[in-house]
């Protein structure tokens, strides 16, 4: 295979160069969080810290109240995951397996609204939240996050339910299971990989969410992590070494989770042409 072998060293070199180029901000993040404050604010800045030190990762919890924001984000993300799952699983089963009028229309609708930006409703959603006394609460954020994730998770879960052979479910129905029993005892256990995917997806979406937090949350102790990082930049003396350390810790959970679902996520977004 001439063009393949000749191209290989070229491909490797180009890959490495592109990776160095594209991962530069993460290199900067790691380098900055290992620097001392003095080193961060010297000109010209150095690429690497002279003496790497991990003190910023510790200072974070004391000086930046990292624990408070981390806890808020965990509550919001877990809350969103739970609510999202409770809403998604029954709905996805219904569109995947039951025959009723409007099934196709509903599926189509989910696919369309999945792409809606929260910004088109934000003005009136703010009013709705105010009327329900949900501003500045965890529940308000959990609800908003759920609303803007369920269309996609129902759509993905529908795909998983549909990939389970009909025969399995029919056998259970013939054996005397009720519909609800077949869902809880047969379908959900088989669809666990799909369930994990949608749960991780909603967790990540809530963890990364910025706009609702920015608009709905006022008090510091309920501020999600991502928003607290942004507010930290706004201050006139931004301590970038702390901020980069905080960014690093905040990114770890989402990166780990993302790798678990990455292939299924791509398949879900791009449709049937890709096998997960």
């Amino acid at each position, binding site marked *: 295979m001439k*063009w*393949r072998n000749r*191209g*290989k060293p070229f*491909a490797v070199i*180009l*890959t490495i160069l592109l*990776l160095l180029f*594209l991962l*530069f*901000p*993460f290199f*900067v*993040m790691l380098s900055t969080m290992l620097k001392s404050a003095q080193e*961060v604010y010297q*000109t*010209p*800045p150095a*690429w690497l810290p002279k003496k790497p030190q991990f003190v910023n990762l510790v200072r974070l919890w004391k000086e930046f109240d990292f624990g408070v924001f981390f806890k808020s984000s965990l509550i919001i993300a877990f809350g969103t995951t739970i609510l999202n799952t409770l809403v*998604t699983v*029954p*709905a996805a089963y219904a*569109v995947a397996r*039951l*025959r009723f*009028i409007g099934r196709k229309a509903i599926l*189509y609708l989910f*696919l*369309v609204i999945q*792409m*809606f*930006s929260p*910004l*088109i*409703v*934000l*003005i*009136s959603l*703010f009013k*709705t939240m105010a009327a329900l006394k949900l501003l500045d609460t965890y529940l308000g954020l959990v609800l908003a996050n759920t*609303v803007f994730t*369920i269309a996609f998770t129902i759509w993905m879960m529908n795909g998983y339910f549909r990939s389970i052979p009909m025969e399995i479910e029919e056998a259970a129905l013939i054996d005397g299971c009720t519909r609800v029993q077949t869902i809880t005892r047969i379908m959900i256990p088989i669809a666990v990989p799909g369930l994990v995917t949608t749960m991780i997806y909603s967790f990540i979406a809530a963890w*990364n969410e*910025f706009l609702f937090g920015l608009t709905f949350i006022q008090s510091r102790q309920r501020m999600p992590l*991502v928003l607290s*990082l*942004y507010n930290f*930049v706004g201050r006139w003396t931004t301590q*970038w070494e702390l901020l980069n350390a905080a960014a690093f810790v*905040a990114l770890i959970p*989402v*990166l780990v989770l*993302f*790798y678990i679902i*990455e292939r299924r996520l*791509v398949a879900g977004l*791009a449709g049937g*042409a*890709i*096998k997960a």
Partner: protein
Amino acid sequence: MAELAESIVPLRQRLWNSEARLAYLLLAPAVVVLLAFMFYPIVYVFLIAFSKTNRISQLKGFVGFKNFISLFKDKEFWQITARSLYWTVIAVAVKTLLGMIIALLLNVKFAGRRIARMLFIIPWASAVPISAILWRWVYHPDYGLLNATLKAGHVWSHPPVWLGYPLPAFIACIWVDIWIGIPFMALVFLAGMQAISEDQYESAYLDGVSWWQKFFYITLPGIRHLVLIATLLSCLWTFNDFNVIFILTRGGPAGATDILITKLYLSAFEFQKFSPASAMAVVTFFILTALSVLYARIYFRQEQT
């Protein structure tokens, strides 16, 4: 057969049999949250757009198309709409191009390509607001490593204050959006390329075609459909990319990086101009719906084949 049976069964029974009832019950929670927190707010935004509002967004009477007319007479609105469009077109084009290059690289069987693939994903896997903050630090005029590197490498002795001037700020913002969007493109294209059978390449090789011919006559037609769906999806994400612009520049300097959604946020929540903001939201709603419907149609067509 099934369709025939369906048409014989009376409508009432099809709407209200035990299976349909269970379906409605199972769908109820999803429908209720969507009605309360998505559809009702959409309707209400339309209502605000056709009304006068005070500074705390209370409705003060119906005014018809007045908000839209003054919006369409505003030169700035057209500037921002045009910018939203070329922001989207440029960003998606560059993402597609770079995504294609990366997919082609990862499709070459070299040792370590699995690791390379994992590393390429990071900008997509990272939280968008955090990425934007990291870039803000990279772009920092005094302590940022981008300008320091450009100077030290003698690439550019006087690099601009990236986020401080209109054109550099626009380039800086659009690059971050592009940078986030590349991995998805690359992954979709790669998955498509891996589904093309080796045999096609083998016979092409035997026929002695060049690399470019191989790409244009086998690879590209093989992933044509995926390119379409991925670029559409990317258009929607790019058009909706509030976080990057808001965190990097808040639409500044002097509105040079404002696109529709950042402008509408600022008019509503910074300047309390709720009616013009809602009119903008309505315009955005129609653009997004058009793109989404297109995406859904192509997605469905592909599901059925």
